[in-house]
């Protein structure tokens, strides 16, 4: 209370320097939980898995190496790619990879078309029907994937709803249970809610003024969509696409329940390899293939984030 101006100034300076350091420490501690959790539960397993896949079977990998079959061991410090050779040398791996990428591309396109359609309908037209549509599209979010997969399987099976309906009017319906078509339907179904939420909110955020100005200047709906709505919601669209694609590429439940035995998606193939064939090393190789494919898609997401950050002047 009775401090002189000089003293007060000095104290302020100390306080200014001190808090800066303190904030840095506090900030670091605040960021610590996710960093530690990711390092321990994701980082370490990834590193040991990579080491195991090239034949380093000691240390943390010794138990899995003792239990597994057809485990290839590195010669001292020289890694071996024999497990990669096992996987890449088998025809069925390439068929599985082809199916995985095909299903991912098809499901993502369908989800993008459906979510984009609903989003644009809601943005440009609005009204009760559009609101009902966007609400119905969220429903799959609240239904467990196992239940949904089973429902889809029975719906499209030979004695299912579709077949029965067609049979009632004397036609033969295609049976989609246990085919890639069922996997695509299931994947699109489970991925739709997130994409709808993402794309609809992106489109809703675009100001009416821009659309009305374009209309006044004589732009048609197609032109408004192409030059205003899509570019301005590009980031949410890219996020929806990448999350859908990454979710589908690593999916297990939907292809396991609804798909064919062979070719099958890599998620199922690598689980089979791990549990049924007891080949952990080969299973990890497939996991890395899925990982590489997913990182390719993830790069798109990073690019979209970077672009939006630069636009807002954060980078």
């Amino acid at each position, binding site marked *: 209370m009775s401090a002189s101006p000089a003293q007060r100034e000095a104290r302020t300076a100390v306080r200014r320097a001190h808090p800066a350091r303190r904030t840095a420490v506090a900030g670091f501690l605040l960021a610590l939980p996710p960093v530690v959790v990711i390092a321990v539960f994701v980082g370490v397993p990834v590193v040991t898995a990579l080491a195991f896949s090239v034949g380093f079977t000691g240390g943390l990998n010794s138990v*899995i190496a003792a*239990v597994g079959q057809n485990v290839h061991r590195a010669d001292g410090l020289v890694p071996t790619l024999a497990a990669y050779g096992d996987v890449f040398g088998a025809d069925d791996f390439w068929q599985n990879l082809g199916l995985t990428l095909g299903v991912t591309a098809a499901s993502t396109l369908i989800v993008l078309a459906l979510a984009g359609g609903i989003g644009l309908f809601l943005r440009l037209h609005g009204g009760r029907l559009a609101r009902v549509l966007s609400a119905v599209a969220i429903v799959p979010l609240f239904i467990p994937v196992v239940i949904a997969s089973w429902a889809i399987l029975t719906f499209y099976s030979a004695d299912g709803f579709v077949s029965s309906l067609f049979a009632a009017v004397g036609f033969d319906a295609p049976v989609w*249970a246990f085919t890639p078509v069922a996997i695509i339907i299931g994947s699109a179904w489970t991925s739709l809610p997130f994409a709808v939420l993402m794309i609809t909110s992106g489109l809703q955020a675009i100001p009416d003024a821009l659309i009305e100005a374009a209309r006044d200047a004589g732009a048609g709906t197609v032109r408004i969509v192409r030059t205003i709505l899509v570019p301005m919601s590009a980031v949410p669209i890219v996020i929806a696409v990448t999350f859908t694609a990454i979710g589908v590429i690593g999916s297990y439940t939907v292809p396991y329940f609804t798909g064919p035995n062979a070719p099958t998606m890599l998620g199922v193939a690598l689980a089979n390899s791990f549990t049924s064939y007891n080949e952990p090393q080969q299973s990890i190789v497939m996991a890395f293939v899925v990982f590489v494919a997913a990182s390719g898609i993830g790069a798109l997401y990073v690019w979209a984030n970077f672009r939006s950050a630069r636009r807002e002047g954060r980078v």
Partner: protein
Amino acid sequence: MKSPRLIATLAAVAAVGVTLAGCSPSGASASSSDGSDKTLTVFLSADTNIQDLWQKTLIPAFENDNPGYTVKVDFDLHGAHDQQTVAKLTAATVQQKDPGYDLVDAGFVTQVAASGLLTPVTADQVPALADVPATLLQAGGNGGVPYRGSSVVLAYDTTTVPTPPKTLADLLSWIKTHPGRFTYCAPSTGGSGASFVTTVLDQSLSADDRTTLATEAAPQLESGWDAGFATLAGLNASVFQNGVYPNGNSQVLDLLASGQISMAPVWSDQFVTGVKNGQIPANIASTQISDPSFTGGASYLGIPSASPRRAGAEKLLSWVLSPAAQALIADSISGYPVIPLDKLPASVQALFPNADIANLRPGYFSANAADMNKAWAQKVPGK
């Protein structure tokens, strides 16, 4: 300034807590010992019928016969975590720590027996072993003890199949002349499918090779499977929906019960239970084929060598092989007894008039079966 620091501290503590908690997910189950030899834990990796068998039938009867003993169950539905369980058991054995259970009933018992993780058991410790057929004991490996049997049978729809095939060759030709009316589950997903595949592969193998494949890891004999896999791939066009092999024993039973297929290999015990509780309609019957017959075999129990309660575990094991316990197993889940039928009550003998427990054709040794599952996935579906 105070609250961010508090939050940061809490966050750091939470991070450490989460990390440590994650390191010991089964801390509670690992401490069942409490020092006495009379509190036992049975690890089950099976379907719910086996859980009921232990919890509602065997354990109450054992505790009743042996006052002072308490038996708990550690249950893994469908063996979903078998690989992790085996890895944990291996780790516990290597480090000489208590694995937390004293008796294992799981499909992987023969696998861990081969890895030397079980206590070898002889008729000295478990006298009832003298009554168990030697072939079954031998298939169990070092420490695996058979305690109930079941086999795969051919189930068929009596309304569409008046006279079922009698041999494997008859069955294969029936499949071809009735396209779309037969299927079996993918061998990696269920034992009934694995049995059908094994039986077709065995058709073109010598008796010696079959025995070797059933008792030890024999990768050198696996080239002999090619003829059988070619036969199986040739069936694709005649199988349900041009080659759909469902996942799991029960999906096949569903297809049969709903009339989508007319014939399929199924487990004897699942079939009997399904008929009893009405899941399988009365028009479905079962039969066994010959030349070769479908495989069957025993389910094995094992005492982990790392368990500190060996004497108690051996007592429970001996009891399970007693006539009283074997009769309970036969009554509740239609499991074949592994001791001679003449030691059992007449009512149990009547349940299995034709069962020849000693001569159930064994399936492959676990390492060979894993290779078979993989080869099947590569050579049969979609080819």
